[in-house]
């Protein structure tokens, strides 16, 4: 039985419990050497929300994401996810707890096919052991097939069927970004963290991704954090925006509020718009 386009069973089957994604960041500070990257950041994410983080380059957006996903270890403050402290955990532990991310510079595996890239992300959902894997026990085979099915659903959802067997390295930039998104979706994350998913895309490609994100968020209740520069995207799809500048939070609120905040205009948006 094949799910038709737009009705991926993995999203539909997710229980409300499994969608719970409450992230709290309290008094977070991060330094590199003497350089202060983040200073006393507080924020929270509610289940089903699409939160955007904006700010000039170098304001600490990616650093903040890296703290949330375990790549950086903040000196002060704490991060909790669904009531559990995740500060300073290794990235793989955080991924296991349900935070999946995409990368700014697309960290895909260029030699592997699209399918192989997505299957890799199913790792945390595989439960067989080494011994059984070496013998390719029937249960292992069943599990592999199940994951393959999930991956195909994601491929359908992102409309990348035609490239499923192509090595990722040979794909154009926009498609690679899409595969990167697909890989994050294959993790079945409770909280999806997107680091500049629109950077370097043409307008059409942007519109496609916006469609996917809006559908994920509105139809399937996917909680998301979006770091992005493109104001027009951010302003039109996010429900709440946090503005960072020089490692500090300078504003927070709905798009309308942020857009008219004098400090934001001064530091980021500029006079022109």
């Amino acid at each position, binding site marked *: 039985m094949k799910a038709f386009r737009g009705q991926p069973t993995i999203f539909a089957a997710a229980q409300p419990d499994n969608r719970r994604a409450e992230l709290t960041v309290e008094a977070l500070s991060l330094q590199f050497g003497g350089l202060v990257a983040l200073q006393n950041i507080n924020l929270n994410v509610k289940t089903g929300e699409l939160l955007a983080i904006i700010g000039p380059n170098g304001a600490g957006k990616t650093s903040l994401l890296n703290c949330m996903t375990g790549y950086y270890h903040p000196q002060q403050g704490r991060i909790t996810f669904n009531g559990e402290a995740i500060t300073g955990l290794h990235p793989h532990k955080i*991924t296991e707890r349900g935070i999946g991310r995409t990368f700014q510079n697309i960290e895909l595996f260029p030699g592997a096919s699209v399918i192989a890239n997505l299957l890799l992300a199913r790792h945390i959902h595989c439960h067989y052991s080494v011994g059984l894997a070496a013998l390719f026990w029937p249960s292992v085979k069943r599990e592999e097939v199940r994951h393959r099915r999930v991956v195909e659903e994601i491929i359908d959802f992102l409309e990348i069927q035609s490239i499923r067997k192509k090595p990722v390295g040979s794909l154009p930039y926009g498609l690679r970004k899409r595969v990167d998104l697909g890989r994050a979706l294959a993790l079945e994350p409770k909280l999806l963290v997107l680091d500049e998913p629109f950077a370097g895309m043409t307008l059409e490609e942007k519109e496609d991704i916006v469609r996917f994100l809006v559908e994920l968020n509105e139809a399937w209740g996917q909680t998301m954090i979006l770091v992005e520069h493109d104001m027009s995207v951010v302003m039109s799809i996010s429900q709440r925006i946090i503005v960072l500048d020089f490692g500090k939070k300078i504003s927070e609120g709905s798009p309308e509020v942020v857009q008219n905040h004098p400090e934001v205009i001064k530091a980021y948006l500029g006079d022109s718009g």
Partner: protein
Amino acid sequence: MRKLKFRPCGNFKERYEQDIAIFETDFGRVWVWVGLVLLLSSVPFIAGSYTLYIINSIGIAAIAAIGLNILIGYTGQISLGHAAFFGVGAYAAAILATKMGFPFWLSVLAAGGIAALVGMIFGIPSVRLKHLYLCIATLAGQFIIEYVLMNWEGLTNGPAGIILPRATLFGLDISGDQSFFWVVFVCLALMCWMAVNLIRSRYGRAFIAIRDNDLAAEGMGIPIFRYKLLSFGISSFYAGFAGGLWAYYTTSITPEPFTIFLSIQYIAMIIIGGLASIPGSVFGAIFIIILNETLSRITEYIMNTGILSGIALTVAPLREFVFGLAIVLFLIFEPRGLAEVWRVVRSSFRLWPFSY
């Protein structure tokens, strides 16, 4: 009854099971079974004892090479200590058999297990090390193990070595070339199959991910350190298992052969065979062992004819030179090794006479 599928021109897969199978077609599967049966049923009767000795050596080397390929080719961790782990396996089997009276099958399996443990100990530095530094750690492992084998006389008898009992399986004497052939090649086939299975499971995917981009792999929920250790363990298990077989086959072992030069031979096998290719490891083993034998034959011949009687010609330097040359030439001209050559030959055959 299901129809046997030969070479399909197009994608006719209907189920995901077909897509994750080892062989694309039933044809390939049948071929391998036929080949295996032919090999096991004909070779021991056709080949003479010397040829059988070479073939058995190839089989044992191939098992070790597969292990090294999992570590270097798939996980991207360079190891220069493979011969030491092979030696650990050989000694483990010998000690277990002589001192504890373990039967053949158990001591060979245990040899693999012990080598895996030792390998994992030397893999511990990989917690914080990138591949460059790591390969130096394995170099240290090589020298330290060599030293221990040579100097811990209470356990290893030092330079004098250990003599093993005859290998028996289910009460049958299998120490002869012919019967050992079956043991080795059944083991090789099993080990090959297990390696291929591992590679197509989540473990293999994780290994490759660590090789290509460990940061992103971690973001996909893969605990890097645990997998690097696992890869070390699996690789050393293969080496130790092969070492155990080898100890039983030669019946007496000394610390001498397990030097860094043997480690380099294993590296040569997988480079020449093809990195990240299981059949490649077998091709590499065949190539290197045959090269080895050919070279000693040639030097023997030259010595006998007395052309160069004045010069003390030994086989070792010539062999070393040719190995080095082979590694260098393959890296420059066919970096993907014999496996790639084989693929090209096969596909041109398949498409013949319409080679486009």
